[in-house]
């Protein structure tokens, strides 16, 4: 049987419209044509391969949106900042230090969380610790974010960057405001800014060195209700 343009058109219909696109007589004709059989088999395999690739891409992108960590955005910012500085940040030597700091901070956090209430009118809002390198807390007074306080000592050239984020479920979402260049462990929002902040949000304090590389970080979710 001679493979011709009509066969090509029928193959195109099979691929784009599915197996039901052709009547049984036409289908039998294609099945009897070795070139058509081979082409169809190859295109079906290719289709499977593309579908697999598209499926993997969808799964991974969904996973990445779901599981993005608060420090992922910092990693992006740092990498882009490093690009501007023309060098790569030395992440490795700091990793062990950060892990040790995290462990120490976790121990301190557990002790603090278990400490008895002091009876002050000021309360610390409900918070979720997210692997912090130092203690970070919010002071809520009369249903307002009164101040954000953290306990960390800066090295020469370092500063704090405080940022507020929207929350998408339990995940940190878009950045609402960023306050870089802070040098003391306390920030009190103005009344105007406080009014713009949501009832519930994420707060992150990042310690940055003179080249804007992140050296330590603390994050928590806060609510003023």
């Amino acid at each position: 049987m001679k493979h011709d343009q009509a066969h090509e058109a029928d193959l195109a219909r099979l691929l784009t419209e599915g197996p039901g696109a052709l009547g049984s007589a036409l289908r039998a004709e294609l099945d009897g044509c070795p070139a058509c059989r081979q082409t169809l088999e190859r295109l079906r395999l290719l289709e499977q391969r593309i579908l697999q690739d598209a499926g993997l891409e969808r799964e991974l992108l969904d996973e990445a949106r779901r599981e993005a960590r608060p420090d992922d955005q910092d990693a992006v910012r740092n990498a882009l900042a490093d690009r501007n500085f023309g060098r790569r940040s030395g992440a490795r030597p700091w990793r062990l230090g950060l892990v040790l700091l995290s462990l120490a901070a976790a121990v301190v956090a557990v002790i603090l969380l278990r400490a008895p209430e002091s009876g002050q009118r000021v309360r610390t809002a409900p918070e979720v610790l997210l692997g912090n390198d130092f203690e970070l807390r919010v002071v809520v007074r009369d249903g307002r974010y009164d101040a954000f306080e953290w306990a960390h000592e800066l090295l020469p050239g370092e500063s704090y960057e405080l940022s507020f984020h929207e929350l998408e479920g339990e995940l940190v979402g878009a950045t609402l405001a960023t306050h870089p260049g802070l040098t003391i462990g306390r920030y009190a929002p103005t009344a105007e800014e406080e009014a713009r902040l949501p009832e519930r949000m994420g707060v992150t304090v990042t310690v940055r060195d003179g080249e804007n590389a992140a050296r330590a970080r603390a994050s928590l979710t806060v609510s003023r209700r």
Partner: protein
Amino acid sequence: MTATDTHSADLALVRAVLAGEAGPTGVLVERLRFIPCALRSLNRRLGQPLREEDLADLTQDTLALLWPRLEAYTGQAALESWIYGFCLNGLMNTVRKQRRRQPASTSPEDLADELVREDPGPDAGFEHERLRSALERLPEGEARLIRLRYYDELTFEAIGRCLDVPPSTAKAAFYRGMKHLEELLRPGSREESR
């Protein structure tokens, strides 16, 4: 908003960033935050060929390389999809370099390990990379049709509306594109071995 509208919006965002506008740059940085997690997930799916510290380096390298390459984004696919291809390529290049440094062992123990592993292993990544590389070499219109059909999951009627062509025209061009792609990927093809 249709898939092509989304792609056009992505292209407008990238162009604004390249023009040095601050607001869009912030938006883009927000959107890029999926990259570290995508690389982690991809590495996990491929059987952890890279260690965590290599992944951290790869994240930085990917971002550093991506920024100047943004000019190459033409809006043919969603921005995240285009960047995902970039991540896949970066990860597989790193695996390739690693393999050159440490030639694969053919000891019976290693071969047995390969047979019992549940994940597809890094070779599956090379297959995905090869497919994407061939898609990039297709004529732009054909690649776009294949992406709209399989990656954006559009019907030919929807594709026709997006591209302002009759569905029959879209189908015919799609079929040509698939045949062309299949030829590019055929073992031994000059293009495939490039």
